């Protein structure tokens, strides 16, 4: 096993361990979040984002890492985001959690995994078509919110952190 692969599997094991400990791998939790009845997934994701965001910005400012933004391709992100949302609700898992769900015994997630492999294969076949249609509808490139708004990244991160913490307060008050 190469260093790259060893690093990947170790990161994955810890990630899967934490996903399972937070109990976010379950169908009930995924659907619960989409029905706004159980906010566990929001609490988990937003906590990760608050911590990760400040750490990543510090490492970028120290020139230790670089940011890799995904392209703001209008057709791709909007159509793809909508399609993903629909499929997510029907399947009840997202790509990462489906694999973890099988690990904790929810073996019906295997059908979702098979569907996703088929979906990826279909996408690869249709890629030349998407490239000249949906993906050519306009691309704002790999941009971050600080450049787009011309506001310092620490300011944006702090505003988001306050917003997320305020959301946590709301979730706890409503017992969600």
């Amino acid at each position: 096993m190469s260093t790259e692969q060893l690093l990947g599997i170790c990161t994955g094991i810890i990630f899967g361990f934490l996903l399972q400990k937070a109990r976010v791998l379950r169908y009930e939790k995924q659907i619960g979040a989409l029905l706004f009845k159980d906010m566990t997934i929001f609490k988990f994701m937003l906590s990760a984002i608050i911590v990760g965001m400040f750490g990543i910005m510090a490492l970028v400012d120290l020139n230790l890492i670089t940011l890799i933004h995904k392209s703001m391709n209008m057709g791709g992100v909007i159509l793809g985001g909508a399609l993903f949302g629909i499929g997510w609700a029907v399947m009840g898992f997202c790509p990462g959690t489906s694999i973890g769900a099988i690990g904790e015994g929810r073996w019906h997630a295997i059908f979702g995994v098979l569907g996703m492999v088929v979906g990826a294969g279909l996408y690869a076949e249709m890629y030349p078509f998407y490239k000249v249609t949906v993906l050519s509808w306009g691309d704002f490139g790999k941009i971050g919110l600080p450049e787009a708004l011309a506001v310092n990244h620490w300011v944006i991160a702090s505003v988001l952190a306050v917003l997320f913490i305020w959301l946590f307060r709301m979730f706890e008050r409503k017992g969600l």
Partner: protein
Amino acid sequence: MNTNIGSLDRQIRILSGIILLALPLMNMVGPWGWIGVPLIVTGVYKFCPLYSFIGVNSCSIEGVVKNADGWSPYIAGALVGVLAIASVYLTTVYMGKSTYIGASTTFVRAAGFAVQGVDPVHVAENAYYLKERVKLDWQFLLVIGIFFGALLSSTTDKSFKLESVPDIWRDQFGPSIVYRALSSFIGGIIAMMGARLADGCPSGHGLSGMMQLSVSSFVALALFFGFGAIVANLMYRKI
């Protein structure tokens, strides 16, 4: 003043606060080691204003472990944040390129491997497989790791449970595994098509993209949840 910090939480705060504070004093890191100060102060006084604001506490096990038997999603989530930071740094050092946590590209590689078994020439000529490269890379191993991590965690705390149909699904659509399997399979196809068009899933866009403040990730995540919420509400509407 009420106390809302339990003894274990208190020890962790004071210890990590001292370590963080020692780093800038020894000139090992920049000024941000000073965030150790509030950790020590809150630890000493056993009161955290943030906990008080949100409405949680770590005095009792119930405070930390809110959802039945697992860990508090706030704590597990914060640890995922730490993992994400460590992983970007380590991939930059050892692989020469900053690499962020994601999952959906692995499904393209898995499809590539499957098609390769039947028609290797086709995979070698397909533009998308050439773009994403069909190999057992960092992310592929990460996705395999998620399985083992979940297995390890669930079998050691007795939450491993074989489930063919989720309870809420059974209440709404009946006990048939066929419908669940079919819905899961079709949902999977649609979701992955979407994830590839959007270039990410709730891991790549939702966690990694949001942490980097990427514009595309804010848009993608809003659409993931927006359309997901519409469909979930249609599926689980009360008749």
